């Protein structure tokens, strides 16, 4: 009898298994899950009603119509919902891994720490935000006057880039937990604050904030510019519209930088033990 060759389950295969197990665990209490998902849907929808009522009252604000704003709103919420779904392990990293010492347990598994934390949970609850964002996004495309056919290609790229960017923020937040687990609510400025800021056209913000959400956190690159491109809406600040077809890639670059920072942080943890 020959020993079967040792076969390493691929990272993707293992991720599927871990995600599947986490879904089984979440659906163990289906009632709780349904209430949470519906609550998620309703609270995010209420947020949009605030914007909608403003536009209903004033028609358009500073040259922006409701269609464009709905596309921005839909994009950022769908992207954030995807990141929340994938990145739960990073979101709870400080409380559930660092503070309790469980991160040591994770290091004892012969797999990448990023993969293991992605596999912490495939969170189903953000489905409420996702559906609601997708609904507003489609409504915005229907309402906007000059939708480009290429939006079909650019908007999915923008969603993917946006999800990568928000996932990067969550990974960066987790890396910060090695230094301190206190006061990390500050990072919510980038996640929830990013979602808020992404809902509005860039021109609504002051110069300092515009620069921040363009060059530090590439929020404009994954949301504002692709939306302008898809709706064929010229940028009042004079940036060429075609930029929006490529700018979502900045979200992936941001994620890449955060992954590098994560590896540095883990190496630092392993050498200091704290």
């Amino acid at each position, binding site marked *: 009898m020959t020993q079967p060759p040792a076969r390493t389950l691929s990272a993707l295969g293992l991720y599927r298994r871990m995600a599947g*197990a986490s879904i*089984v665990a979440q659906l163990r209490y289906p009632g709780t899950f349904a209430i949470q998902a519906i609550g998620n849907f309703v609270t995010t929808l209420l947020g949009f009603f605030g914007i909608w009522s403003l536009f209903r009252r004033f028609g358009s604000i500073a040259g922006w119509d409701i269609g464009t704003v709905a596309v921005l709103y839909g994009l950022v919420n769908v992207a954030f919902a995807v990141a929340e779904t994938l990145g739960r392990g990073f979101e709870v990293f400080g409380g559930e891994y660092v503070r309790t010492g*469980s991160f*040591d347990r994770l*290091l*004892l*598994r012969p*797999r990448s720490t990023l993969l293991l934390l992605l596999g912490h949970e495939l969170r189903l609850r953000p489905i409420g935000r996702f559906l609601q964002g997708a609904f507003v996004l489609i409504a915005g495309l229907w309402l906007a006057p000059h939708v480009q056919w290429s939006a079909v290609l650019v908007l999915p790229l923008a969603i993917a880039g946006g999800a990568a960017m928000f996932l990067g923020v969550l990974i960066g937040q987790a890396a910060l937990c090695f230094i301190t687990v206190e006061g990390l609510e500050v990072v919510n400025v980038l996640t929830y604050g990013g979602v808020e800021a992404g809902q509005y056209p860039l021109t609504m913000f002051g110069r300092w904030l515009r620069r921040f959400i363009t060059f530090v956190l590439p929020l404009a690159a994954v949301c504002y510019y692709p939306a302008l491109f898809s709706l064929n809406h010229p940028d009042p600040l004079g940036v060429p519209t075609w930029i929006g077809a490529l700018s979502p890639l900045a979200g992936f670059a941001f994620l890449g930088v955060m992954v590098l920072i994560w590896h540095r942080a883990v190496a630092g943890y392993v050498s200091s*033990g704290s």
Partner: protein
Amino acid sequence: MQPPFPAPDAITVKNLRKTYTVREGGSWRGKTREIVALDGISFSVPKGQIAGFIGPNGAGKSTAIKILSGILRPTSGEVQVNGLVPWTNRVAHVARIGVVFGQRTQLWWDLSVGEGLALLRDIYSVEPERFARNRARLADALDLGGIMDQSVRQLSLGQRMRAEIAASLIHDPDILILDEPTIGLDAPSKLAVRAFVHELCQDRGTTVLLTTHDMHDIEALAERVIVIGHGRILADSPFEDLRMTTLSERILELDFHGTPPELALPAGAVETARAPHSLTITFDPRQIPAPALVAHVGHLSGLDDLRISRPSIDEIITRFYADHAA
């Protein structure tokens, strides 16, 4: 990464040193101070041995365990576990060891024991046939049959610990590190865990490094104890040797049906307690062997019963720590 020659021992540690830098006063600008957790320790554990690794809290045990597990990088020194340097290739190293931290679960709270083991199969890439074999063997030896379908959250501490041990062995590691495996367990569970570890070592030649504060674990399992204190190795010997050098005395208890008589005791024996119907004598068996002492007191009138006992392992270790100011 293969070493130039196969290391004969499962674990080899040479001049291992680890210092931590701490900030005084907790402020960002405070002065830093060095704390020495391990001050150059050396030992090796041959394949198939159960070595007890003990010491008071803060002695450096957990630092050493973390370094051997590959989750902490030492300041200096050499370590080889299974021929690998733990911290240079974490993934390859941890694939070949099993670790049980008594206080932290490695299973998933919301999953059943069986589901958790299946997930570990995929994490460790255990072939399906080998997994089925190991799972059946471990379920049998650790009596997991009734709890395979229960979620980990619902298990009692004893059941959980048995599941944890199974989880740490599903990938056939050559080395098992047990950190407080019996903490909080009731007596039957403790005995079951000890019996299992003993068998594992006998039947499969697994090398076991055991840290515990329960000296009965050590007495029952360890062929050898490594005592660590202040980051140094204070003793490294079979437990019997530690007993002889630390607290070799024995105790003779005598029960009388009347008042115990006044005794003239031989050299090496002293009366240490007197009660209305009993007498306690402490003696050093190297000066006066037990049979001679028993012969000396055996003819006393009114003597009902006599018992000889040794100091408990807890007393021995307490004395040892005190002697070494550990």
